[in-house]
């Protein structure tokens, strides 16, 4: 059974995009619209590309963004683990195993989408 028969690019983009949108709403609830705005600015062109049957391009762009996002999170969190001075305790507090699991998940999904983008469409 081929992978694309049960996972469509839409599903994967939606799945990986959900945490970013959730974050946007999390900040919206406290009156900060910027993260949701960023999520929309990224999400809208991807949705348009998929709508116009340009899923390979959408997957390529989105997977690169995911890899970048995961890499920045990984580098930042690893650095913060070793550099304690001047880093807010509130940030240090969030560097939990679940933060690293999410980070690795973003990275892994980004790589998976990039490598399998042709098979998935």
């Amino acid at each position, binding site marked *: 059974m081929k992978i694309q028969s049960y996972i469509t690019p839409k599903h994967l983009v939606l799945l990986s995009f959900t945490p*970013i949108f959730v*974050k946007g709403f*999390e*900040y919206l*609830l*406290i009156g*900060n619209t*910027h*993260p949701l705005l*960023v999520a929309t600015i990224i999400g809208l062109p991807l949705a348009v590309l998929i709508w116009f049957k340009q899923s390979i391009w959408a997957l390529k762009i989105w997977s690169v963004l995911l890899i970048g*996002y995961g890499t*920045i*999170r990984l580098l*930042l969190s690893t650095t913060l683990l070793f550099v*304690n001075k001047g880093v*807010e*305790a*509130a*940030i*240090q*507090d*969030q560097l939990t195993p679940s933060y690293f699991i999410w980070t690795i998940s973003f990275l892994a999904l980004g790589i998976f989408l990039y490598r399998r983008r042709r098979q998935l469409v």
Partner: protein
Amino acid sequence: MKNLVVLLLFVLVGSQVTLGQTPGTRHTGSMQKELVAKLTGHLPLESGFVLTQRSKSFERAIAAQYLEESLKSIGLQARKHQYTVSNINLIVDMMFHPIEGTNIYAIIPATNASDEYVVFGAHYDSEPGSPGAIDNASGVALCYAVAKQLAELQVRNRNFVVVFFDQEEDDEIGSRAFAQWAKEEGRNVHSVHTTDLVGWDNNGNRAVELQSPAAMLESTYKAIAERLGIPIHITTGASSDNKSFLEMGFDTIAISEEWFNGDHTPHIHKPTDVYSTVNFEYLSSTTELVYEVMKQLAEN
């Protein structure tokens, strides 16, 4: 005759020892010591937990719970002011969750109808890796003792709010959230008094620094300090929770040891900021100054 002279001398010496102390402050010393000891891990909390720092969220939650119970034990209705705020910039927002924290406060109501509130407080969190005895269990102990004595006053012509701020060490997040909230609630805030670092007095002169005081507060503090024989130094800027209130236009004053004058704790933000470094006589003296100011604000 000889016995009479001895008795007179005894009375005289006794009166000198208690001179300058208000009845309240004589009884708050042991209470302050216990509070500082429990906040810094010198003594375990009732639960048996030993707080070695108050930096991580679970440690701050334990400290907040302890302070809430401490306020209740002196007959005040302790309340939580919980807040959730954004990080310093959008990039950090996209990487992390919003920041959450809890300020603990209690209102000491006016005995005569008043809509004015005098806010006084200190931050209870500490820098990671530091027990935070002087920074700032000392400030918390000061406010706690002042709150206890204010609650015992028969007449208060203003409402008083004692507040223990969370996350001062993270750019005064807690006090900023509290100041914002007070402003949004439209409270008539008479003045805000914040205490930070009030446990070091190496030269023994009992001097206090008042940072960026509002004019009316400066004159009140100066007059009372003169009466109590406490030297006062006025400094500018804002380096603690007073910054949050100054930025929002409140009449503010910050009370601390001689930070700019050079007689301050060398242990700040270090693992050595422990219970044994706190000068409790100095803490008591500064408590008395703040209490006398509050008492005057309560009476006028």
